């Protein structure tokens, strides 16, 4: 699993992993904005910082496959 991840990172850096970079960037931006909204809004309530970080990273991680479901690798 880690080997596969490392291999993907190497391909990604060579610009060979993603077939449609514009789609990827757009969907990643949408995911990032959702995550940012979650993180910053939860952090406004008086809770310890680890709570918004854990909630937003788990949730944002979980929605990324939905956002990127049409993305194709080479």
């Amino acid at each position, binding site marked *: 699993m880690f080997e596969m991840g490392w291999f993907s990172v190497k391909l990604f850096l060579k610009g060979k992993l993603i077939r449609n970079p514009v789609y990827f960037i757009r969907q990643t931006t949408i995911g990032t904005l959702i*995550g940012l909204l979650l993180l910053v809004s939860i952090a406004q309530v008086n809770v310890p910082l680890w709570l918004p970080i854990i909630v937003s*990273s788990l949730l944002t991680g979980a929605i990324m496959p939905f956002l990127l479901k049409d993305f194709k690798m080479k």
Partner: protein
Amino acid sequence: MTDFLSSLLSGDINLITSLVWLAIAAGLSIVGGAIGGVLLAGKDLGYELAAMTGGLLGPAGVIPTIFLGLLILNLLNNS
């Protein structure tokens, strides 16, 4: 070490705590991505492959989120 842990838990945002949060968030994003992948495609791809693909996609959105989020929170705290 005690100073570091207390600043981590009290929510100080500085270079070191940011890096630690980023690492924690990256780990959680892999877990989140795996959950999302299984929910999305577990039946079609098989649970293991879906979790693995999701785990690769999760961090793509989470790492910029935490990076920018800590930056924004830091600005909000100081203003």
